[in-house]
């Protein structure tokens, strides 16, 4: 059928993209319904978020139904399979959690708009998770980033403009690197498809193109030394947007990186080309955790902790083993729950769900709000890699993957980074269990109870995934 029509898209091609389409089209419904709502009623917020969640759940159900069926749509530009589906599901879960946090943040007349922007960004990340040629990667990346440029600026805080401008300029620069790298790769091989890049000879032009492509990726993943923008942007952006960026942007970019590293590089030269990336991952684990030691603002701390956590995930890809890919995905899922759990706790600690939360606000939390402190302790224990959480199990599996792939030095750096991170995370635990005079601590409670759902789900997932580590087994093929 498809041979008779050449590369002309057929119904099945569109079906593969349907979940992303749904996520991208739900905003049209949200914006349309919002036209008929007036004032600043809670209903207006609730309707926008409910529609968005329905759209996301529908997309998630469709993706789950397709697992692990694989199909290469649009002449191989978008490969639907276990890999893209798992990443898409992570994006969907993270987006729903973000929306739960966002109810009550910002002005009511903006909610339909901001919800739409979040969904478009999520659609971009879903595209990236299946993108198997350079054009599709760029398309997904830009769709993801464009929404975020606006979202960063939405808050009325002074730092929001700075955050948005910084993100716009640096992220555009990263896109520029990525695009230039893609152009050079196309020039060197005459093709944009990952599968044909893998069979091309490695010329200097190819190496330069791959290098620039990786610089763009490293910027988006905020690997050291391309991480400087992250803390500032995280600090200025509204809390739900920060939560979204810390998971969805990273998930989408990791999907692209993994597919490129595994499928687009000539197998015999891949380990040499990728070596600098493992060095960057090692540097991220160390620098991210060391810098996090000095932070007193939760968002900045989480920015640096995220830099280190992504370092762990990237390290899992070392040696391009299939096991490493599985455990990277498992750890990413775990990181998604632990990190979003922390963000949900922070959201519950400010009245509007978006105040600046310094570490001092955690003092004595265990005695004022024991459930919140218990959940937070579980998330922090998980991020520090201690049992009984997915942080522990995931880390063991990453260690096993890296050592068996012959990158024992990377496992050693991971151990050192984790040891440093213990101080970062347990500093907060210590503050929560410290006895303080309640009069000296500002105790704000969020008016929006929905983040509690996120806290509960994330805590359950953090624990259960540690006991039953459901690493996806059907994640191949990456290209067809």
């Amino acid at each position, binding site marked *: 059928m498809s041979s008779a029509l050449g590369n002309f898209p057929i119904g099945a091609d569109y079906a593969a993209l349907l979940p992303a389409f749904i996520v991208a089209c739900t905003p049209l419904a949200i914006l349309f319904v919002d036209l008929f709502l007036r004032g600043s009623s809670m209903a207006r917020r609730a309707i926008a978020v409910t529609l968005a969640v329905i759209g996301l759940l529908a997309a998630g159900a469709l993706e789950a139904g397709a697992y692990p069926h694989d199909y290469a749509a649009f002449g191989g530009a978008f490969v639907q399979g276990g890999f893209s589906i798992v990443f898409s599901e992570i994006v969907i879960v993270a987006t729903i959690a973000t929306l739960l946090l966002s109810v009550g943040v910002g002005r009511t007349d903006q909610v339909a708009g901001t919800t739409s922007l979040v969904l478009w960004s999520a659609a971009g990340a879903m595209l990236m998770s299946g993108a198997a040629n350079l054009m599709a990667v760029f398309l997904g990346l830009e769709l993801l980033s464009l929404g975020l440029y606006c979202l960063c600026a939405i808050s009325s805080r002074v730092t929001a403009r700075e955050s948005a401008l910084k993100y716009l300029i640096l992220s555009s620069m990263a896109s520029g690197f990525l695009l230039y790298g893609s152009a050079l790769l196309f020039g060197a091989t005459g093709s944009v498809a990952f599968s044909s890049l893998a069979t091309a000879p490695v010329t200097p032009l190819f190496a330069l193109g791959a290098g620039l492509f990786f610089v763009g990726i490293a910027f988006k993943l905020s690997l050291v030394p391309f991480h400087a923008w992250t803390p500032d942007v995280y600090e200025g952006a509204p809390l739900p947007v920060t939560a979204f960026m810390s998971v969805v942007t990273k998930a989408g970019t990791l999907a692209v990186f993994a597919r490129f590293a595994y499928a687009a590089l000539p197998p015999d030269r891949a380990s040499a080309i990728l070596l600098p990336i493992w060095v960057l991952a090692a540097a991220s684990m160390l620098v991210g955790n060391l810098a996090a030691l000095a932070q007193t603002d939760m968002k900045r701390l989480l920015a640096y902790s995220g830099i280190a956590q992504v370092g762990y995930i990237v390290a899992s890809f070392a040696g391009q083993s299939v096991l490493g890919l599985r455990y990277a995905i498992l750890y990413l899922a775990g990181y998604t729950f632990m990190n979003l759990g922390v963000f949900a706790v922070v959201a519950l600690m400010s009245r509007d769900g978006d105040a600046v939360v310094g570490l001092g606000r955690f003092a004595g939390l265990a005695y004022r709000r024991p459930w919140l402190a218990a959940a937070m302790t579980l998330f922090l224990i998980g991020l520090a890699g201690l049992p009984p959480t997915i942080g522990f199990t995931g880390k063991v599996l990453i260690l096993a993957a890296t050592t068996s792939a012959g990158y*024992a030095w990377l496992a050693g750096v991971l151990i050192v980074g*984790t*040891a440093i991170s213990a101080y970062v995370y347990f500093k907060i635990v210590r503050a929560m269990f410290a006895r303080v005079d309640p009069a000296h601590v500002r105790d704000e409670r969020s008016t929006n109870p929905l983040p509690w759902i996120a806290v509960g789900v994330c805590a359950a997932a953090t624990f259960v995934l540690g006991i039953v580590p459901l690493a996806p087994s059907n994640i191949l093929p990456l290209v067809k």
Partner: protein
Amino acid sequence: MTLTALVLGPIVAGLLLYALPRSATNAARAVAAIVAALAFIAPLVDPSAPDAAARWLSRPFTASFHLGFGPLSYWLVLLLALITFSAALTLKGDRAREIAAQLLVLQGAMNGVFLAKDLLLFALFWDLMLIPVFLVLITTSAHGRPAWKYLIYNLVGGLTLLLATAAYGVLAGTTDVIGNPTAHFSVVSAWGLWIFAGIAFAFLVKTPVFPFHTWMPETYAELPPPMVAVVSAVQSKAGLYGFMAITLPLLPAQMGQAQTLMFALGLAGLIYGALAALGERDAKKVVAYSSLSHLGLILLAVFSGSSLAYIGALVYIVAHGLFSAALFLALGAVEQREETRDLARLGGLAARNPRLAGALMLGALAALGLPGLAGFAGEILILTGLFKAGWTLAAVIALVPVVLASAYMLRMFQGIMNGPDVPDLPERRDLTWLESLAIAPLVAAFVWLGVNPGALTAAADRGARTTPPAAITSSVAVEAPRVVSSR
């Protein structure tokens, strides 16, 4: 079922204690004591409980939630339950509920460490042990230093153990190997030594062995008495248990290669601990440093390759657990009464508090190795074993600190109990019946084991026959020509 309950029961009970109101000191104490007593009775009633196992990981290596009694672990579980029971009875003050809760969580985690038959599960409980102690340390110590020292030291140990476990799992294909001789995979490649180093570092830090002990005196000094009794009596044995039950069967050749180093560390700890205890003014730190000295002796026994010393090691592990718990609980009673642990500020308490003096005396006598008490039984077996195995010089050097033990223990006892009355010390009542009830089973146990260590030596003998300690030295002898021929 029994085994699962031994691990999960205390943890769940501990977490449920948080549902009690904060002021319910008596209820918290009662719950903790009952749970500990049940954990003591369960192994006695059901000594041959079947293993509990459930699959955890299938790839990249198989791992299971596999719990089972071994010859050593059976006794350590009993020891832990007894000491937790005693510790729970001495709980008091406004933090009793939190400490009771964390005490039970710690008991569950440590039961997990001793009962785990899977290396990865062992590592999981090993790391889990950290959390309750850290949570208690941060609430009791005024400044954070001891808590951080404890956490970072032990976490680094836990992480090297984890890395070694992962590497072992990848090489062997499974981590479900503890106490299962048919599944043992002997690592002969260069990896073996790295894996052993990772595991041994964790064990040495946790024990602790000189020079990784610097977290220990501060931690012991800052922890509340019930917690420190459990930590010093049982948690410090986790590393030694690990050497006997895990590395001895799995990595005997590597243990042989490390033998000289470990003897050096053990002897250094023996002497340094004894001298530090002689010079220390803080009574709790005297006992802390004496532990460093005693545990150094057990390390020698474990690495000597002698079956007799191996048997002595188990006897001394249990004996040290009993008398160090008794000492710390008695010192806790002193500190609660007099609000100081400084030997220079204490004195003459025996006249007013005869029961407290008696408890401290018995603990001190057991610690200095008085014949007829359990400490002596362990020491004599270890020293004889060392001597018979040809470690004459080490046995002679080890004798010196064993003698010094009399000096520092009596110095501590005299500093607190004898001498003229110190005028500004507050007058307090003697041990209450509850406190006496807490220390009595410990005293009874080390008297009984001192007179009749037969049950323990029989268990250790079974352990020594399934995994002969001589494998350490023999595997060196076997491997040496192989190394030469491969060149």
